[in-house]
């Protein structure tokens, strides 16, 4: 059921489906190719007949969950940058529209766009020592695509603090501020914790889960595609500014 050569691997196992980001040598940084593979795999899930999985677990192969957008490849080309950000925006909208409950199993660093992946999921689970956060402003970049999902996850006030202060936090701190829903003490306990949450979710009625998720989507504005798509444009605009370009070049050359 899975193809190990792919950048993203979907595995179907009864009521629980798994999507693994499989670019461990680049800490699962989101390139156009990786996002393309993630789109393809999620589309396969969408096209499945009723009676399909109730739960989708997203995780990263290797030590990181996802190190964020692979900006190095698109720094010189704003058209490609917009394409990359648009692809991320569309993927987050797709995840939110899935009728199943989506769980992020944050096995390691979840940074910037990677933290956005965790926050768009219905539930995020991690261990106390993972690294999460949005250091975009420190790099002169604006986290506009992921901001709406963070606002919906933790509220506008906490989102302001998190996005404006930048930097990274531990899994424990992420749990304290509402970015993470379930925390286990050590990395070695993560799989077991995720399994038990997934089992519990899978035991629920899939129609009830889908209806409830659909209602929550309506209530919190998750179905407003235009905000996230405008976010992609804003993010690309800010990326093209001299401030962002010089900071990112300094980072990539170090």
């Amino acid at each position, binding site marked *: 059921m899975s193809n190990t050569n792919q950048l993203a691997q979907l595995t179907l196992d009864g009521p629980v489906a798994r999507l693994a980001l499989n670019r461990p040598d680049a800490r699962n940084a989101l390139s156009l190719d990786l996002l393309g593979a993630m789109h393809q795999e999620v589309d396969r899930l969408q096209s499945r007949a009723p009676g399909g999985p109730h739960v989708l677990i997203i995780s990263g192969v290797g030590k990181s969950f996802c190190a964020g957008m692979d900006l190095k490849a698109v720094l010189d080309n704003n058209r490609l940058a917009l394409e990359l950000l648009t692809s991320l925006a569309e993927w987050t909208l797709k995840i939110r529209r899935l009728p199943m409950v989506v769980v992020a199993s944050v096995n390691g660093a979840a940074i910037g766009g990677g933290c956005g992946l965790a926050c768009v999921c219905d539930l995020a689970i991690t261990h106390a020592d993972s690294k999460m956060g949005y250091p975009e402003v420190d790099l002169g970049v604006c986290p506009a695509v992921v901001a709406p999902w963070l606002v919906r996850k933790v509220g506008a006030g906490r989102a302001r603090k998190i996005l*404006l202060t930048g930097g990274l936090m531990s899994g424990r701190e992420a749990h304290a501020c509402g970015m993470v829903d379930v925390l286990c003490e050590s990395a070695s306990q993560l799989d077991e914790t995720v399994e038990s949450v997934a089992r519990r979710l899978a035991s629920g009625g899939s129609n009830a889960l889908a209806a409830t998720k659909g209602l929550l989507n309506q209530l919190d504005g998750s179905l407003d595609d235009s905000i996230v798509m405008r976010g992609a444009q804003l993010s690309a605009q800010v990326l093209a500014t001299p401030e962002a370009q010089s*900071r990112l070049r300094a980072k990539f050359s170090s």
Partner: protein
Amino acid sequence: MIRTHVHGDVYEVVLARAEKRNALTPDMLGQLCTAIGETPREAGGLLLTGEGAVFCAGFDLSLCKDAPGGEVMRALLEGLHRAISALRRLEIPVVVGAHGAAIAGGCALLGGGDLVVTNSDAKLGYPVVRLGVSPAISAPFLRRLAGDGVARSRMLENGLISGREALVCGLAHECLPAPDAVRDFALEAARMLAAKPRGALAATRRWLDEISPIELDVEALHVSTALAGGEEERRLLPQAWAAR
């Protein structure tokens, strides 16, 4: 009643009426708005703090004694609305160092901050409905700071919570053990924010305002001012000065 200082990139605005626990008067709120309006162009962050034992104990309600028609209460409410709006409209991040107490109008000022720092045993809250006063004016700002549920319980429940509890419910973002440490910590946070790339910070702040806008703030002010000088307020407000 308001002092300002420049610390490098940070512009500090200080509530300076320590002998009255920084209780707000219409004049003081006017000075506060002026000070915010005079934020130096080169500043990268604004820090709002209070002198003395506490950040701010709320409105100076003793001034309402001689204005049974509610004129002073209306001026206080309008001044508070202008001050919070002015903080929200700034292009630079705002840090509030709320040590000791942030009560009623003082708690409302937290709604103007991007980052709120307090201490464990500080008292925060909005116990004014018992005085016949409506805290509606602050609702549009407090629900953006701490969410609808917290805004509702703080404004309707009439009690105070500790800084520790404020951290848990989202009314504050940082909570320090000692009140004396709040101002220095908040100044450091403002410096840290002011040192960040300004373009990205301003773009991110504007974007957050766009996706989670302040709504109905003028209508909310009117809900509060409509009760000023009314029968209920005239009956209940005297408790405030009897208690002091």
